């Protein structure tokens, strides 16, 4: 009779996610964006122009030849946006990965050991959080100079403290649970407790946060390259295309509109997806 029992069990996070239309929709968009930038060379007739080779038809409006128009050096804007997406999304992913790699272990350590270790780590976190994040990124980018990894460092170094906070809060709430104390009692090493017993509980809130953060990271990358602190030209990047094209608005509206839409759609999709993850994994907190 087990099958007819009315289930008072909550549906699994996976099923909850599948029933969330906004979440699914955003996932489809993200897969679409990723597919576009991965298969960029096959999706445009002007892959060279995407990488920077100038053409001769400058500032042309959208047409059947150039579906999104051309830029100030006669390059197909669709190709520029495809290749620009590679840089923008790659940097955003690396930023969040860097923040995860630095922030999460520190948070677990701080939460598990407590005491002066916790104090030191959390005061460092406070120092970093005291700076407005974009200002810190601008400052670091200016000091480090242009380059893909410098840009990742510049943004990522201001990003990790959030993960430390989340991981620490999570560890604190599980720190006193019997299974942790039992493990300690049995002489399991600290490292093992932190990686085996505590890390799994840190995973899901950190996953939610990092998905939400991908959207903000894309915006921050765009802001930095808009300000001229991004990769050296002619490497395209969504923020940099807007920065170049802004002097042509509104007469050549396509120049800023399409890269702007690319940023908008991608950032929004990551945010919706993060929200949807949160309500699927942790429905009590709401969204």
């Amino acid at each position, binding site marked *: 009779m087990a099958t007819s029992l009315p289930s008072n069990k909550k549906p699994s996070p996976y099923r909850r996610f599948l029933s969330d239309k906004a979440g699914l929709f955003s996932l489809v968009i993200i897969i679409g964006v990723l597919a576009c930038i991965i298969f960029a060379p096959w999706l445009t007739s002007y892959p060279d122009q995407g990488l*920077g*080779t*100038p053409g*001769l038809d*400058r*500032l042309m409006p959208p047409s059947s030849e150039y579906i999104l128009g051309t830029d*100030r*050096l*006669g390059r197909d804007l669709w190709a520029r946006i495809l290749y620009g997406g590679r840089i923008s999304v790659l940097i955003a992913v690396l930023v969040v990965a860097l923040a995860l790699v630095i922030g999460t272990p520190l948070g677990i350590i701080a939460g598990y050991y407590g005491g002066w270790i916790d104090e030191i780590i959390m005061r460092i976190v406070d120092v970093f959080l005291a700076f407005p994040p974009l200002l810190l990124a601008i400052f670091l980018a200016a000091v480090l100079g*242009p380059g893909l990894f410098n840009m990742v460092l510049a943004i990522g170094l201001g990003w990790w403290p959030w993960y430390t906070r989340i991981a620490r809060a999570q560890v604190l709430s599980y720190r006193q649970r019997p299974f942790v104390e039992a493990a300690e009692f049995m002489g399991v090493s600290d490292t093992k407790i932190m990686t085996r017993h505590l890390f799994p509980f840190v995973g899901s809130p950190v996953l939610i946060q990092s998905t939400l953060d991908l959207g903000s990271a894309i915006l921050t990358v765009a802001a930095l390259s808009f300000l*001229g602190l991004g990769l*050296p*030209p*002619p490497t395209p990047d969504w923020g940099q295309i807007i920065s170049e094209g*802004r*002097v*042509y*608005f509104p*007469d050549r509206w396509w120049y800023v509109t399409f890269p702007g839409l690319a940023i908008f759609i991608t950032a929004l999709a990551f945010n919706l997806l993060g929200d949807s993850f949160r309500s699927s994994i942790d429905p009590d907190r709401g969204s």
Partner: protein
Amino acid sequence: MKKTLSLIAAIVAVMLWSAPATAQSKNIFTATYTTGFIDLDPSTAASSEIAVLANVYEPLVWWQPGEDGADGTLVPGLATSWEPSEDGLTWTFQLRDGVTFSDGTPFNSEAVKFSIERAQRLEGASAWIWWAVESVTTPDPLTAVFTLTDASPIPLIASSAYSAWMVSPAVGDKTGEWFNAGNAAGTGPFLVRSYKPGVQTILERNTNYWGEAPEGAIDIAVIDNVEDPVLREQRLLGGKSDWSEGLETDNLEQIDANENVSVERFNAFQNFFGMYNTAKPPLDNLQVRQALSYAFPYDQLVNNIMSGQVSQARGVVPAGMPGHAEDAQQFTQDLAKAKALLAEAGVAENSLSLTVTYTAGSPEPQKAAEIYKAALASIGVELTLQPMSWEAQYELATSNPETAQDIFMMFWWPTYVTSLDFLASLFRSEDSINYNLSYYKNPAFDALVDAGAATMATDAASSAASFEEASRLLAADAPAVFLYDQKSTYGVSNDIKNFVSNPAYSHVVFLNQISR
């Protein structure tokens, strides 16, 4: 409530009454410049500050362009006449009578002596113009005598846009700090009313000016420094600014189509080039430099990117200036030849990797560098673009040639109208690096430049011939890729009359010439 209403009514009444009244009583002119001013000291300033200085100070002599905007004549400024001695080693200037500085000090030969000596003493970037002046003597208040070590065209030098302004002797030992606090002491038609570095300078009419003001003269000039090209354009088109420089080339047509604004172009002695680092391999090799010069897409830059609004340069001296050689070598793009030259120079295919620096945020150099990169890629040379702030770019270039950039892109306009400035400041051998950012050292070239400089005052024809010879030698030796000569282009409000740009004083609006 009633009180508020009556208050509003009163305010409105005051506004209605006062608005037309102020508009009638003061004629205000607003100009928008690109970068901030750095130094308002008339003896040391070396950049766009002349926008202010040329209205507040006056030189002994002005350079006036001819009909075609080029061949100029020298006209009296604070000097009324001048005459050399037979050997050319002294020049005697008769000075204008009845002129006083804005601080009340009379203008006389003592002031001339003071101004020249102050420029020499402070050693600003343009102080070199007075190199041949040994002393200035003052036989009487309205006569100043320049004694020279070498014959030198002092009236032409005195018309310089830099380091030749007459300053009140009452300034004494005060340095740039005093000037940059918003003080001034000149004889010009305008006074500095307020100065916010990098933001705004306000000038007002000098009511004690010795000269005449035109009808509809400007009373107050507001000079704003706006780095963003989008803002500059909006200010001009929105009527917030009567005049603007640094407008986007691709937008000029639309700007000109605006019914309140027109785009005006004037002859200028300004050009744009990329200096090769000749101090280290591979660009110390002539064949590699030639290859790089053959690789540049000149036609694409001039006719496509710049829409034909500039003309391809021929050597470093801009066309229209004495010393420009019409038969100097001019490179055109020839990728096959470039590739062959690289092979001859022993450069293995795809082994060459170079960097170019240019001022960040400046659109023309970036466009030029991007098309250059694509052209070089097609002959297997990798070019890395490195946009930097001007200060950082200049510091890298002047630190150590061995570790400096390979190509340095920049614009140049003359201190005074002479090809000597282009040839000597940019390519004559230097012990300590100043503006020879090619680190070019060629004794034969130096000798030609020196020969030209030595005969400038005594034999203009032979001087020009030496400079032309130097230009030809330089063009063939390719220490730089010479890109284009440029006109100066400004957006001007249609109700401003008589605006004329003088190529000897780039960036200046002569406020006592225009009217509304």
